[in-house]
């Protein structure tokens, strides 16, 4: 069997294991699936009137923050992957992974790959609820792009959470993983268009690559899908996956040999 085929088999087997958390634990998936939708509904119930501000680019606040909820779901899923890895480290399962002859990037891809797939679950639920509540259909192109960006962002957060899991080797690092994800999502144009943000938040949002990811995902819900907004989003998510993926592989390589 070729090395590539073996790598793909390994990745597939680890992804299947990663899905057990939602397929075999009754209600295990619920908090992660529900939370982004709850946030979306709650934020739009609380701050809905913000859409009346002059210069607000969307007709209603809920439509504006749908992409925030989608990213949040991806972020929760990625963070949960790190928490699960930390649990595996605590319980010794991670040693078993490290004893496998597979290359470290392949093992990481298996762990992260399941996060990518799982991230589509909260996204699907959120969109069903959003459309039911009147958010208009963004178009197939926007949905496909959105799915790519969701999976990419989930992969990036999963790699980030993996770095933390390898560093701290305990599930007690979970809040750090979750807070990290929260910060990068909300310190963007999450709540309002760039022009309406306060100066300090605008500066942060401009520097935050996830702003590009969010704006890329907002296409179709607010405005049309254009290449000018799409390529920075794809570039940003690729850069994040590359950065945190490299750090994660390095972290894994430091475990033993």
């Amino acid at each position: 069997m070729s090395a590539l085929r073996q790598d793909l088999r390994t990745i597939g087997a680890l992804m299947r294991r990663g899905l057990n958390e939602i397929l075999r634990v009754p209600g295990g998936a619920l908090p992660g699936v529900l939370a982004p939708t709850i946030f979306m509904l709650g934020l739009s119930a609380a701050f809905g009137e913000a859409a009346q501000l002059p210069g607000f680019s969307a007709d209603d606040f809920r439509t504006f923050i749908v992409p925030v909820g989608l990213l949040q779901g991806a972020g929760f899923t990625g963070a949960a992957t790190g928490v699960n890895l930390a649990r595996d480290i605590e319980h010794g399962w991670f040693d078993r992974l490290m004893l496998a002859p597979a290359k470290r990037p392949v093992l990481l891809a298996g762990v992260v790959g399941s996060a990518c797939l799982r991230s589509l679950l909260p996204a699907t639920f959120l969109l069903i609820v959003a459309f039911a509540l009147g958010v208009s259909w963004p178009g197939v192109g926007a949905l496909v792009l959105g799915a790519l960006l969701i999976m990419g962002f989930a992969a990036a957060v999963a790699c980030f959470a993996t770095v933390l899991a390898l560093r701290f080797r305990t599930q007690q690092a979970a809040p750090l993983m979750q807070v990290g994800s929260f910060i990068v999502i909300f310190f963007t144009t999450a709540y309002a268009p760039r022009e309406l943000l306060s100066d300090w938040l605008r500066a942060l949002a401009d520097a935050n690559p996830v702003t590009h990811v969010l704006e890329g995902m907002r296409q179709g819900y607010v405005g049309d899908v254009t290449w000018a907004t799409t390529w920075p989003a794809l570039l940003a998510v690729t850069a994040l996956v590359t950065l945190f993926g490299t750090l994660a592989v390095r972290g894994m390589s430091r475990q033993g040999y």
Partner: protein
Amino acid sequence: MDGIDLEVAAGEVFGFLGPNGAGKTTTVRMLVTLLRPTGGHARVAGFDVAEQPAQVRRRIGVALQDAALDPLMTGSELIELQATLHGIAPRKVRARGAVLIERVGLSQAADRRVGTYSGGMRRRLDLAMALIHEPEVLFLDEPTTGLDPTSRLTLWDEVRRLRDEGTTVFLTTQYLEEADQLADRLGIIAAGRIVAGGTPAALKAEIGTPHLDLVLADCSDLGRAREVVKRFGDHRPATDGCHLSIGLAHGAADIAPILRALDDAGFAVAELELKQPTLDDVFLAKTGEHLEGAAEPEPQAAAGLV
């Protein structure tokens, strides 16, 4: 660790015996590429653990002290996952998994989630997973800790069978009897150092000869009794006034003459016991302390049922 030098021959069972905290698990983790040593080098199955870790991992099987198993997966699924991770061809995975599951006696439970397994079943599955890729060297880190006596014996039989099939087994244990029963050669470790090495018989012989413990029916003339048996061997410290303890220079052959001598002198023997030197005696001689867990452990009531 304070310097570990050892060599394990292919096809032998090497026992690494020592108390808790001696460094057994640390040594294993270094040899199986899970822990970087701060100095020195090691070769396992012909490959350097630091320079060629992937090649080492391909040739070793490992069952660590905690049988880390995913409770959400079934025994079969875990075996198949392990087989996939070790690159076993897809068409062979099921068949080989089934053979191993049968071998460790888990056929009935193979399709149940591991979360429902007893401690003994988990150990057996762990062993099966360590063997799925037919490793040249098998590392077993305290494989019978926490198991009931029946499960322990079953595992011992499996280790003997593996040795007979040519697998090299590196076994760590804190149980004297386990080391005595299974190991072709032993390394006794304490405080990060190997304090003694060799076959169990050689180690015990190095320490001393067997001794005979006697309890006399009438203790009133113990001094004369001691004089009677003086010529057969050295007196050992007795535990109380009715006991005699004599080192036997010629082993069990000395028992009958001693009893005849005592009988001729009018002494009746109420109890007698022939005691061989133990590995605990070896440990005591080398370190000045008894080995922890020298007594057989209490079987754990729930975990360890077969």
